[in-house]
């Protein structure tokens, strides 16, 4: 199954998004990397690396992130793991996490999930 990592400045937000996604996909490998080691707001290279390790398999890992340093730090983690299949997804984090988790649990591959996530970015709620 494709692994999913949720990166946010807020530990609570990252964990909440993971919980939200698990409601629909109990077995999908999904990990939170929110906030800094001491619990304050920010993005942690180490937390993101550990989360990738936790959910990694040959099927690859998708990283969903909020803004600013979350994007840049996730990108640097990805670059530090050159030999691995890791992709950053450009989509709303909460909706994207649900879509990705459902896809992963259903056995979709990384490319299929990415195609689904493209739609998530364009869908309007109202």
């Amino acid at each position, binding site marked *: 199954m494709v692994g999913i990592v949720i990166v946010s400045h807020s530990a609570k937000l990252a964990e909440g998004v993971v919980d939200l996604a698990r409601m629909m996909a109990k077995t999908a490998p999904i990990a939170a990397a929110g906030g800094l080691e001491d619990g304050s707001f920010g993005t942690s*290279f180490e937390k993101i690396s550990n989360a990738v390790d936790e959910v990694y398999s040959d099927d690859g890992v998708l990283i969903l992130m909020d803004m600013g340093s979350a994007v840049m730090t996730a990108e*640097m983690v990805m670059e530090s793991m050159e030999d691995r299949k890791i992709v950053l997804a450009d989509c709303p984090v909460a909706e994207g996490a649900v879509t990705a988790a459902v896809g992963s649990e259903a056995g979709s591959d990384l490319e299929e999930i990415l195609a689904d996530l493209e739609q998530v970015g364009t869908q309007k709620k109202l």
Partner: protein
Amino acid sequence: MNTEKLIAVIQKIGTKIEAEKAFLTELDNVIGDGDHGINLARGFGEVEKKLDGLKDKEPGDVLKTVGMTLVSTVGGASGPLYGTGFMKMGAAFKGKADVAVPDFLEGLQVAIEGIMQRGRSTKGEKTMLDAMIPAKEAIEAKWNESQDAKAAFAAGVAAAWEGVEFTKTIAATKGRASYLGERSIGHQDPGATSFTMLLEIVAGEV
């Protein structure tokens, strides 16, 4: 500048950042999330712990370690950005035991390019680049004209402060302040300010 001198400069930068921590954080409070000084002080605090172990390395490797430490400990955008900058500059110094003004200019150029790539940003977006780019151009111009390192760095610092002033006149289109849009006008960018402080320390040592 050799390794011994470089380590002394980085130590001074750490001291400066610690002293300006509250000021930089206050600037970031106004148009950002109020952590720039805290972030950089955390990062350079960790850098300081590593400096003793770097005495036998060449300057480029010292800068690489500084960059990697900033990436892993700063926690905000200035971590991956300054981190990338220091690592790129370090790579540009590879094999050199001593770095001179032309080496520094080349290093600063690749640092700027690295930051632009990492931040998907360019000049005029109210970021550290608005101090870095004019500073690099001014150092280069003065150096080419006079071959006088002190004068060149003094021109660079002056141009960087002008860049900081310029950030007051524009709206942010990158980073946290971009969420404020036009409301960010009138306030100086924290990252442009911290870069200028770093450059001032370097200028004081050439």
